[in-house]
């Protein structure tokens, strides 16, 4: 499954430019330190965290995309930073639990 497939199947809204990478699995956390310690390359990162420090953390661990859940508004400086580092930021109006259910139905699991 790719990021583009997910956008279509899970009703996600792209907020930054993105590369259509393969998605390996799912990681859920609202702490950048936890993501650095636990997320794997190619993971989707689900979070409600919108501060721009999510971008370098995502870049460092090489996640395939960040999904901001709960319809939270993402500051423009975070999106600018994501464009600079080619990090896909997607938005979902669903709360994290609801989106996880949908991703699970689509066959995604934790790596």
């Amino acid at each position, binding site marked *: 499954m790719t990021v583009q497939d997910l956008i279509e199947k899970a009703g996600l809204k792209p907020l930054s430019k993105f*590369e259509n990478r393969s998605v390996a699995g799912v990681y859920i956390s609202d702490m950048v330190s936890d993501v650095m310690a636990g997320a794997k390359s190619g993971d989707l990162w689900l979070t409600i965290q919108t*501060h721009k420090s999510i971008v370098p953390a995502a870049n460092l661990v090489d996640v395939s995309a960040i999904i901001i859940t709960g319809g939270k508004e993402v500051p423009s400086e975070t999106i600018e930073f994501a464009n600079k580092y080619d990090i896909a930021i997607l938005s979902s109006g669903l709360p994290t639990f609801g989106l996880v259910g949908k991703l699970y139905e689509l066959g995604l699991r934790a790596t």
Partner: protein
Amino acid sequence: MSGCQHRWEMADIQFGFVVFEKCFQCNGVRTYFTRESLPIIGDEYREGDHFWHRVENAQTFRFALRCTKCGAAESFDDLMGLLYCTGCLPDCRLEILRQRLESERTHLVLACGFLKETRVRPGQIASRKLQKLTRYFNQRRDRSRSTISIRSFDLDDGFARCKGEFLHDVGMLSQEPLTSRRSPF
């Protein structure tokens, strides 16, 4: 000397806080790692000639790297954190390096040791350790897209002018909107 082509993984992960303290007397800043459940901002205490005031804390973790093949290990207890250059100063040596590496599809990440009292520059992490950390992050990523290069943060004036983005969870325990988090520096 080991001939092992190390395959690194993170080990001994400990979550905690980086605490930032400022001295009223000398204006020095120091940082350290603690596993306290919640270091309280505003705490003050004397220590010799210093009068330390806790000004900020940030959730973070410390770790070691261990080779899955030979068991060799390297501790990173001296690493305060990693910082991404944001290109805030076009003539900054690190920004020039960042741009050069970017043209080679390599992202520059800067490693900072802890601040020790009146010193402006953060502690320096040994280059052999940074090579291992670089290798760890590159081993686990899709290197056909880009790679990571971790170098020492060695600007002479430390964080005085740098607006780099620290990979810390500053303000996670606060009710303030995250967009208004202040830099610990």
